């Protein structure tokens, strides 16, 4: 999602000032050249909308369209337009084409387009926020009620059916967490930092009963985002324990480098569960794919997204015990 109230215009300063005077509820940053415009796009400033002139070589809409992330809409508004430029610009990814020279007031027309795009984005953001809050509250409250009822019922009777209900409630809870997470982050954004992998593994595993964790080598300090790394590990551990049941042993360690030539390491997380059939290994990271009747199809898909956001690679093979072995590669040591 963009930085609210910020749009970017790449073109002559004079035109930029006129547009700025006509835009509503958004700050317009004006840059004279494509290079300066692209340079202003960093993690902190992701505009809701970019409008660009096309006057090569200083202002090149194609150079811009290549550099801008696809989620930021780009309006191509050249001072000297043509139908050919319009076609090529739209094909290259521009959201709209607007020739200001054909309008009575070109600056006002561009400003109106910026206003329309930003208003639409805000409406979508607000809608998602409201929906997320609704999903979160309206689904978590009954889960709490069900959990509470279950704990009260346990004081009056003992039945394995109560354990089954508890398990189902936990799955629903996990599903809602994943769903809310997905709604909040349409794309996973991460801030990489030094993370003590051993500490995060220990924290994440804590309180897991009925299964054993074996750390098989000294775990390094790596570059990752702590909360996302926890989520990744939690989902993989949860997957192993769910399929392996009580008595599962999960082993984690460093994959010895073949040549030791770079600063990246490989990590493995292996279990002694039933394993994953070779023909299913491609699919397990897809949303909605689940190998069990009570799976949500979210866990490993989220793992895959986090791996991508970290710029790591993940693969799955068979462990020495016939279980699943997840391998993470390209993990940078800090």
């Amino acid at each position, binding site marked *: 999602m963009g930085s609210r109230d910020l749009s970017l215009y790449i073109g002559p300063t004079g035109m930029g000032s006129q547009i700025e005077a006509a835009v509503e509820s958004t700050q317009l940053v004006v840059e004279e050249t494509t290079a300066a415009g692209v340079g202003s796009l960093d993690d902190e400033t992701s505009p809701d909308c970019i409008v660009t002139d096309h006057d090569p070589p200083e202002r090149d809409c194609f150079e811009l369209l290549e550099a801008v992330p696809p989620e930021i809409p780009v309006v191509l508004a050249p001072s000297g337009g043509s139908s050919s430029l319009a076609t090529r610009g739209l094909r290259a990814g521009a959201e709209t084409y607007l020739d200001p020279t054909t309008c009575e007031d070109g600056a006002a027309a561009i400003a109106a387009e910026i206003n329309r795009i930003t208003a639409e984005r805000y409406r979508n953001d607000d809608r998602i926020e409201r929906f*997320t809050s609704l999903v979160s*509250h*309206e689904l978590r*409250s009954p*889960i*709490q009620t069900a959990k*509470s*009822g279950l*704990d*009260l019922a346990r004081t009056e009777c003992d039945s394995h059916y109560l354990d089954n209900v508890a398990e189902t409630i936990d799955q629903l809870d996990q599903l809602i967490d994943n769903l809310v997470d997905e709604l909040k982050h349409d794309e996973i954004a991460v801030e990489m930092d030094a993370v003590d992998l051993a500490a995060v593994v220990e924290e994440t595993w804590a309180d897991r009963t009925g299964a054993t964790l074996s750390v098989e080598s000294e775990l390094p300090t790596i570059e990752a985002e702590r909360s996302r790394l926890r989520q990744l590990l939690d989902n993989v551990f949860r997957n192993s324990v769910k399929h392996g049941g009580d008595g599962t042993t999960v082993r984690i360690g460093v994959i010895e480098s073949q040549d030791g030539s770079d600063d990246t390491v490989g990590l493995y997380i292996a279990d002694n569960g039933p394993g994953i059939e070779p023909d299913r290994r491609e699919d397990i990271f897809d949303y909605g794919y689940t190998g069990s009747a009570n799976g949500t199809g979210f866990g490993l898909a989220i793992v895959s997204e986090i791996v991508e956001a970290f710029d790591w690679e993940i693969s799955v093979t068979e462990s020495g015990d016939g279980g699943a072995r997840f391998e993470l590669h390209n993990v940078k040591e800090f």
Partner: protein
Amino acid sequence: MTEEDRKTVLIVDDEEMVAESYELYLQDDYETIVELSGGAALMELDQREVDLVLIDRRMPGMSGDVVVDHIDKWDMDFQVVMVTAVDPDIDIIDMPCDGYLTKPVSEDELVDAVERAFLIDHYEDLIAEYNQLSEKYEVLTSQFSSRELSNKKRFTELEAQMEEMEAEIADTAAQFSDSKLSDAFSRLH
């Protein structure tokens, strides 16, 4: 711990079953009172002394937010823990509460949050008491020479008392299960 020493927790949640389960989780270690609305909770607080309020944020009628605002305005001296299905947002910074739990909560999470809130309360009391002693220590050391003070029994008692308190403060800080919080408290004193 004798019955008289037991701390009292007021549980406020409009879902009766939820409130009852919290009572079940806490009743072994605390006196518990249950109220099913914000208004009833405020009336209860007016009549009874409680040590901690465990309150749902979103309730029909008077919300948990409004109740904690009243508690804050009335300068009531007890811990407040919010337990809510509302995802925490930036607004919790200004919320006068000592803990925030997102539903659904387990027995362990709830008991931990309550213990932690009481630990923070205890820690704050220790710091306030230590600061009082420290002020007196400063005044006396600026007024008298160290030789004069070393002969005064009451002053050496004060020094010993401060040392004991420093150890107790460090112990209390170390009890916070979250190492970050523990470190932060350790830095404070």
